[in-house]
């Protein structure tokens, strides 16, 4: 008998997103933790646990979760030795927190890792972070030639977005998206956010909205997407909505940079009293991270002391620490701005020239350059950079977060 149906259920269920993925990660972690208790010698499951912990931390962005990963990785390396996959995980973790010297040590712990595809990805990332732009580009291109994985396409896309090849960057993000399946919706949403950021930093807010919404649709419930919504709302002058969105995001992921953003939004709208607790909290968290040995927030501290608290000597101190770790156009521009705020214009000009020599095409950096050159009486050059900054992003004076 033919049991053919004539009509199926037409309405697809909403896509699974952040909540479901986090639940799965938590469940896996619980199972693996339980196994660790019973079979502490099962290296494979211990490695899996470390990776799952990293997965969870990447989802939540919570410091405590990243600390759990670090603890698990160090403990497992201590018990089993520097296994390649553990060293790779540690290298990725260290890279995320700007501990670049540690990344090198991690790769050296398992010497063959340097030559592996995954190791070479990190080496190219290091090249970019440390200002060896051409080496980074060649590295990404070689990796893509070898195996055009979505993440390496995105890395090259990021490179091009910073160095002014905007259309090529977007095309690379599109190519990266095409490599992803429905089983990788978080990665797809992340790529859509990058495309949105590309649009946002060039003043194309409607395009940014389109990409952010698509990210939200593809991977619902992600606070990281909401963070982008909040910034865009603020840039558009929808301050109340932005405020509500920032508060919502902070409730889910109380990262200090988000608290600073909310504080700065209040400053931007003249609500100084409301700003202070958020800024105080952000600063306390930055400094707490430093006391615990962290280096990830040096850049934020430099920005914070240069513009929020206006303690330019402190700004220079943190900018110098940052640049000692990774000298690139971003840290050089931050240093230039801190020096300028500290009244050391000629030193500031040196650093901004260094940043510009990289070939970076960023409205914020060009705007900094314009200010510095005009302050130095180099008006023509200043006006030129101001003009290009406007060309790149006509909206660059609008609210934006410090990333």
């Amino acid at each position, binding site marked *: 008998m033919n049991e053919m149906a004539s009509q199926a259920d037409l309405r697809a269920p909403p896509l699974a997103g952040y909540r479901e993925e986090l639940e799965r990660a938590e469940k896996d972690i619980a199972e693996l933790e339980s196994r660790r208790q019973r079979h502490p010698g099962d290296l494979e499951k211990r490695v899996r646990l470390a990776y799952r912990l990293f997965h969870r931390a990447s989802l939540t962005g919570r410091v405590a979760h990243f600390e759990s990963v670090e603890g698990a990785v160090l403990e497992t390396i201590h018990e089993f030795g520097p296994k390649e996959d553990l060293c790779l995980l540690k290298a990725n973790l260290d890279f995320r927190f700007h501990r670049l010297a540690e990344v090198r040590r991690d790769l050296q712990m398992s010497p063959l890792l340097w030559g592996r595809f995954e190791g070479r990805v990190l080496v190219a990332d290091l090249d970019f972070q440390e200002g060896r732009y051409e080496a980074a580009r060649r590295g990404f291109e070689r990796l893509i030639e070898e195996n055009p994985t979505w993440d390496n396409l995105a890395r090259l896309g990021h490179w091009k977005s910073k160095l002014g090849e905007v259309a090529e960057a977007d095309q690379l993000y599109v190519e990266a998206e095409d490599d992803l*399946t429905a089983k990788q919706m978080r990665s797809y949403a992340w790529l859509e956010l990058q495309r949105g950021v590309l649009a946002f930093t060039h003043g194309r807010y409607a395009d940014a909205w389109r990409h952010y919404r698509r990210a939200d649709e593809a991977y619902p419930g992600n606070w990281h997407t909401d963070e982008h919504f909040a910034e865009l709302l603020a840039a558009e002058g929808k301050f109340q909505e932005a405020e509500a969105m920032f508060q919502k995001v902070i409730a889910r992921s109380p990262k200090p940079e988000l608290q600073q953003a909310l504080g700065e939004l209040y400053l931007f709208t003249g609500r100084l009293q409301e700003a202070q607790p958020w800024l105080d909290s952000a600063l306390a968290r930055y400094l707490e991270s430093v006391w615990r040995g962290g280096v990830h927030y040096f850049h934020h501290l430099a920005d914070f002391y240069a513009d929020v608290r206006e303690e330019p000597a402190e700004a220079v101190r943190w900018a110098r620490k940052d640049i000692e770790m990774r000298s690139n156009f971003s840290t050089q521009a931050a240093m230039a701005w801190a020096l300028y705020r500290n009244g050391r214009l000629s030193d500031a000009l040196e650093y901004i020239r260094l940043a510009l020599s990289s070939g970076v095409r960023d409205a914020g950096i060009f705007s900094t350059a314009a200010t510095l050159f005009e302050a130095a009486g180099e008006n023509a050059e200043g006006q030129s950079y101001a003009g290009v900054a406007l060309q790149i992003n006509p909206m660059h004076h609008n609210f934006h977060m410090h990333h």
Partner: protein
Amino acid sequence: MADHNDPNAVNHIFSDIDYSPADLYDFFGWPTAGGNNVVFALTFASTPAAGVLDSDLLYRLLLTSHPRVGWPDADEISLESVLRYFDAVKDKYLGELKTAEIRVTVETPSRVMVKFLGFNCGNFSTVVEVNKVVAIPTPDGQMIQAFIGGRDDAFFNDLTGFFRSINYAPQFYHVPLTMTEARELPIPKTLLELEGNDLFNYRPDMPEWGFTQPDGTTPKLDLPPGPWTWNGDKFKKDANGNFRFVYDGRDCRAGQNCNAIILEVPHSFITPATADNRLVNGWGESWVRKAAHKVESIPDDPSWLMHPWKAVREKELDEELRKYKLVDTDGQPFADAALSEREDDRQLGANNFWLGPHFIKRLAHLGWGFGPSISALGLKTSFDHNNSPVSVYKTYDLVATAFPRVAKTLFQKLNMPDPSWNPKGLPIPLRRPFEIFIPNVCAVDMDTSGTWPFGRRLEDQVATRFLSMFLDMEAQWNGKKYHIDMLGDQALWNSAPIVPKTPPNPLKNDKEFLDQFPYLAEPWPENW
């Protein structure tokens, strides 16, 4: 990526990669109804569960029917001849051959869309419920039986033994995914344990080493630092003079399920010229929806569902396929697992003709491992190993160097155990390995029983039959010519100086197959 004929699918051997419903397990095909119908079964990982399909997947069964034409140069045993054959196959598959398709997309976890494309009666589609036998009438008045859903996995095999024979480290050791050089370790492949091979020899203190347990875990060891070498010069023997088999014959897939697309199709639906086109070639593919189209697919276009018999325009279908990414292919058992080294970029399905030269080199590499093992047991091998007393690790850069060693293995006709494969007694030539694996299709001869290599029946022990390629089919044992099931004969092992005394792989499935459609047994109960 799946390892064809290997339900442990290579990726799952690693610690941090989950099962995927795109991992194809097997492709079966055999004639029924006196050669008037043909059954095809594509099996794949039962994720999310047996009988529950993943709505991001698209499966294709590709079919083509053509005459049984013998390769004219089949008796010319030369490299040139076999390379000409690969070229001819390429021309055939890229040129004249018309391929029809049965495409399955998952509408909901319990309902699938089945589209019939490129058949002579025109394109049509229908929606069917999973886990039910359904009859699908065709526009030309015929009937197709279909079952799509959960079944017992029809594969029965000592996978761990196979991995031990090819030194596949990730089954036995914790091998990070990054360490690609530590997969097949560079020591001789072998059917008999090597004296002093501490890397893979059986460990009495760890009898379950490398065997996946009911809870899904696999006892493994920490991979010792390299170099991974073996410096011995003989096979291992016990105090009684017995070799130790790397297999123990257990069914590593016992009690486990798969999802399956099973179709029984009239031959005349595939081709109007059934009398001439006695071969039906089939192979399967899995595709996963691209992320970008996952977003677009809400809500989906209901036209398919409202008009299940609606003819399909080619253009629309191409658009559909473009929304998916090809992940896996499956045609011939062991075409990938044993011959293509499970490399993802070699998942080519029927179009594997460009792998022909690699196939020769790989077969020679395997031959240096298995050939001496066979000789040591007192059996004749088709592989020329220069009377080596023990397995040898040897790889080849040049096809021309590999070919003389493997010529007989490639060209010999694979004897069948008895005449039951050819019930009509027709002058059907026995198949040769080079014809079986290139192209990578399940080539069902409608005048045979469809037993491998004339198709693939559920009860065929294809892993043991694959090993039989290395037997010299001109030799005799117990007064009978060697044949493809000889290594499954318990009497042979009883008389061989070996322990354990078992055929390498189980002789039958853990569940009885059904004698009627859908043929694969009911799934085992699952806990979730």
